[in-house]
């Protein structure tokens, strides 16, 4: 058992992967964990494939390299599969969570793999219904903490309120809270 949880987020710039990776880290900090979160920067703009990373540990985090063997890969945009290697460095017991209307079985067939654990959730659909915009980041966080219960749902909701308060309208915050709750309930396993 590694004493550090390492998560890689795959998304397109503008989908909020950085915010989600930070929100997760900040919630974990409130729960007494040590954290590190950072996006991978390039020259790209909105729509370009990007990655973000989160490390969570019970011990102080000193390492400053990127994450090469994540425990969990979160894919915010299904269309990235086949375009970027989301499986890179993911061990056979690793976890993949994909934003899609498809079932885990269908994603497995597309990825053509027999190992690793696959989960899916329609985060874009949930976001459109709750927030009114196709921003899948907060529902994906909801799905993640259900699959990997490193922090509680309550803690995430509290932290989101704290982080978003003053920056967004109350209805946007409410929408995000509902998005997290719904994705937490609706994430599908195989």
């Amino acid at each position, binding site marked *: 058992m590694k004493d550090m949880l390492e998560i890689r987020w795959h998304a397109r710039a503008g989908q909020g992967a950085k915010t989600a990776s930070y929100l997760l880290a900040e919630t974990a900090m409130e729960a007494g964990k040590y*954290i590190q979160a950072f996006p991978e*920067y390039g020259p790209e703009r909105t729509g370009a494939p990007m990655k973000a990373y989160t490390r969570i540990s019970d011990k102080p985090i000193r390492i*400053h390299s*990127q994450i090469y063997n994540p425990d969990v890969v979160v894919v915010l945009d299904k269309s990235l599969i086949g375009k970027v290697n989301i499986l890179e460095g993911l061990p056979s017991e690793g976890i993949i969570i994909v934003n899609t209307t498809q079932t885990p079985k269908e994603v497995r067939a597309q990825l053509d793999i027999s190992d690793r654990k696959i989960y899916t959730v329609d985060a874009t659909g949930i976001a459109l219904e709750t927030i009114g915009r196709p921003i899948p980041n907060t529902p994906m966080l909801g799905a993640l903490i259900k699959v990997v219960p490193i922090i509680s749902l309550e803690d995430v909701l509290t932290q989101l309120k704290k982080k978003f308060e003053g920056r967004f309208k109350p209805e946007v915050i409410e929408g995000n809270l509902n998005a997290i709750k719904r994705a937490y309930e609706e994430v599908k396993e195989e």
Partner: protein
Amino acid sequence: MKTVKRIAIEGNEAAALAFKQVNPDVVAAYPITPSTEVVQKFSEYVANGEVDTEFVPVESEHSAMSACIGAAAAGARVMTSTASQGLALMWEMLYIASALRLPIVMTVSNRALSAPINIHGDHSDAMGARDSGWIQIFSENVQEIYDNIFQAVKIAENPEVRLPVMVGYDGFITSHSEEIIEILDDEVVQSFIGKYKPAYSLLDVDNPISVGPLALTDSYFEFKVAQAYALENSLPIIKKVGKEYGDLTGRYYDVIEKYKMDGAEYVVVAMSSTVGTAREVVDALREKGLPVGLLKIRVFRPFPTEDIINALKDVKVVGILDRSMVPGSFGGPLYHEITSALYHFEKRPIAQPYVYGLGGRDITTQHIEKVFEELMEIAKKGKPNPLTYIGVRE
């Protein structure tokens, strides 16, 4: 009973927060990646009226440093921030700031120099300014950025020092990484740095002065030696401030840090964020029973020669990791300084030069493990390899 306040924050924002808590008289700055958020966040504090600072948005980094020099000569507490090409553009003004003995504090999100254009972290910018007479401190993580800024103010303004200080940290790797830091209350910061009393001020009309006069063959040399003397003598003051800061916060700072150096035969020397990654490797190899250690250089200027000699003299092989180049030479700046310092000692380690991580190329635990393997082979062979690049494609 004081409570410890912990927050999650990115490196640049931690720097801006420290600026805010210092509440300097003047900040003149021009934003540049990857230091932009320092100025951006600080200008928010200014706009919100959370600081008393006169914020001077200028049209270039050359102007930024010029404005800082003017304000500091007028007796103000002055801070700024830059990186890479911005620091390069400041170059001539850097020398003036230090030679006029002005205690300006500047953060540098260390970044590669063009060409090719690259926005990522390496130490080329700071090393280009290593002879400018500034004190140079490098930060391993976000906590150290925050802590080093307060210490920098206190060091710079010490009446014995009166020199500008550059606080460096790795662009993107630390500047854009969110980590947990412990923060101080504003009053604690203010009582630590104290009220700034400039030794000389252009605004002190009762004691008029001339700043930056002509000094030709008859006296330039004396001014420069006096300046160099002040820089060398800042070393014990940097140590003293690091100890005082430790007494206040529990986080003690020295000019170097010896990590698992007791009985270490194979040692890696590094600066900034790479030190954290190297700690993991040293722990893992020590667990296997290998006599390895790590020497962190926190202060590069003034160069802590004695401290480094004492730390390394009994070591068998030392691998010196430079995140910048000296093209046309046989090693990086850190290698040159350390090997020169050791030259006069009969008993000294074999020193192996490495250059790594240019333009933000990642350095991993595997890279550093390989370095230790090479150091052990070099011990058997009895002589170093030529300059070795880590992680470059042939």
